[in-house]
């Protein structure tokens, strides 16, 4: 617990909870762009949008952002080219590529050019939120990040979770689930989105809902056993919500 509450944790806590984070959403499809803005704006993010290459280029070079969500296929140019230019002038923005092509080659090229992550369309907005959060944390704190959520303290570096009663023993999946909830506080996470996040896109089988249920049940029990309030609420038919005031 001593290591958890240090000055880093405090700045981090303040940064993540009281400062707004600037995002640039570069996506040519206005409807999708709007959905992303709508979802992310409700978490402490301030979103700016660009719908073509030139607009994106101008915004990148005049403003500072914490993270850029970048679509590869853009009117007027290629997103990868934009990324190349961005990295050439040593901008420190985190970049999340969203692409319609589920191509390993493109992913590798993107990551080699300095992107932080790659997400294939269609995606869950919750997943996007989780990826953006993770990029920002990684960028801002170099992975030595400590998150405080309600009565929970999460140390990202060594993947440990603390509560009032000490360290909480979580399985890998439970930890990932908790982290996913933390990036989507107070939002409904659908069961599909949880499955995709924890087991990847290929796990499209009916039985996997039971799987989600059993992991949620275990995590919830562990949290409550260690003195936390009942954060995880089931939303009828849809999924779960991590409620925190």
């Amino acid at each position, binding site marked *: 617990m001593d290591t958890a509450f240090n000055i880093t944790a405090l700045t981090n806590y303040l940064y993540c909870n009281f400062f707004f984070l600037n995002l640039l959403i570069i996506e040519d499809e206005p409807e999708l762009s709007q959905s992303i803005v709508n979802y992310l704006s409700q978490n402490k993010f301030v979103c700016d949008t660009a719908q073509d290459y030139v607009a994106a280029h101008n915004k990148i070079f005049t403003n500072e952002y914490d993270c850029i969500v970048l679509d590869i296929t853009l009117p007027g140019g290629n997103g990868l080219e934009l990324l190349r230019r961005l990295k050439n002038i040593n901008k420190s923005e985190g970049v999340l590529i969203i692409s319609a092509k589920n191509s390993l080659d493109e992913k590798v090229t993107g990551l080699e050019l300095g992107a932080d992550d790659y997400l294939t369309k269609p995606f869950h907005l919750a997943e996007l939120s989780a990826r953006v959060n993770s990029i920002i944390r990684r960028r801002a704190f170099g992975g030595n990040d400590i998150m405080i959520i309600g009565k929970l303290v999460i140390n990202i570096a060594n993947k440990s979770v603390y509560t009032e009663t000490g360290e909480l023993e979580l399985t890998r999946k439970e930890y990932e689930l908790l982290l996913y909830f933390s990036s989507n506080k107070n939002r409904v996470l659908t069961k599909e989105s949880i499955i995709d996040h924890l087991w990847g896109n290929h796990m499209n089988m009916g039985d996997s809902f*039971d*799987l989600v249920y059993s992991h949620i049940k275990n995590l919830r029990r562990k949290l409550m056993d260690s003195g936390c309030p009942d954060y995880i609420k089931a939303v009828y*038919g849809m999924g779960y919500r991590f409620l925190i005031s």
Partner: protein
Amino acid sequence: MKLISLYNRILLPVLIVVFSISIVVSYFFIRKVLQNELDATLSRTKRRIVNYVAANQSLPAINSFNDQKIIFEPISSPLKDTGFYSATQYIPEQQKEHISRKLLFQLNNNGQLYKVTISEPLEGTSHLTILLAKIACITIFLTLLILLVINRNILKRIWQPFYQSLEAIKSFNVHSRQLPALAVTHIDEFKMMNSHFNSAAENAVKDYKHLKEFSENASHEIQTPLAIIHSKLDLLVQQDDLTEAQSELLQSAFASVKKLSNLQQSLLLLTKIDNGQYHKTGQLQLDAVIKNKMDDFQDIFNTKGITTRVELEETSVTANRELLDILLNNLFSNAVKHNFQGGVAGISLKDKRLTVCNTGNSNVLDENRLFRRFYKAVQRGESNGLGLSIIKEICQASGSTITYAYHDGMHCFSVQW
């Protein structure tokens, strides 16, 4: 049947019949001609005798050293039948019966009537006809033999460009986009065939390319509206005041979007495999990759109470990492999807052969239809019927083979590298 065999089968009997008829006809024809020749000789002799009798008023002396025999017999009443006829005659020198040609006529010498028979053996003519027939037979036989040899050897050589082109067409594949290398030939028919082959192949390659581009573009175009629907549903879910009925509607909309998205991803994947976009390969430690994949799936196996039996031998294969990952995902999720609660899944890797077996409710599956796109043995909501055809395509693209077997109540899929 080969063209040459068919050709021989028609040509040879026709030739044999034609030759036989010509032998028979020429035999009779030659015999007739020779006989006419003989008859003319007999007529000449007759004329000489008649002239001699008219001049000398006496019968001529008979020269019996010649083959020609002349017999004078005095008769009392005139002869009824005169003219040529054939009859057998005994030749004392040869002590043999021979067919002879005879000319019978009557002669009046000083009021006395004579029956005159001039005869000459046909021996010479029959020898000649037999010889001619023999020569004809030998000629026919030799002609047929030579024809056969020509057909067999020379025609084979002449047809060589045809077979070469066929071979080239056989190995032609629209996937490879490589036009077949057809034989160079100066024979017009083959040239024509090759040019038709070439243009057909070119069209096939072009059409195939267009089709691929179309499917890939269509897939991408579908993806954007799907992403939008997905994002809008994500936002709708966040509404606080959703009723149960609305939740249910939303849930089934989500499920369908998910299914459509999977379907689209699968089709795109198939297109990409077809297009050879996964050509990069590397040496992979298969047992380690499988072990990792097993860890990923452990939760899922556990939830369904499936017991796993794993036997992995150290194996290294050359494969595309991405395709291998998809292959294992599909094989393993099949073993879960089509399994029953508390079933068994067996995974073994031995002699470069990966076998994934599972217990299941259905009986033996139809191997011929199993790997076809959109084939579903059992109609299941969460399956799009593309899993196995993706497995098959991946195997084809990476030079391995997939087989299905059913024994002891287990459905087994084996991939042999």
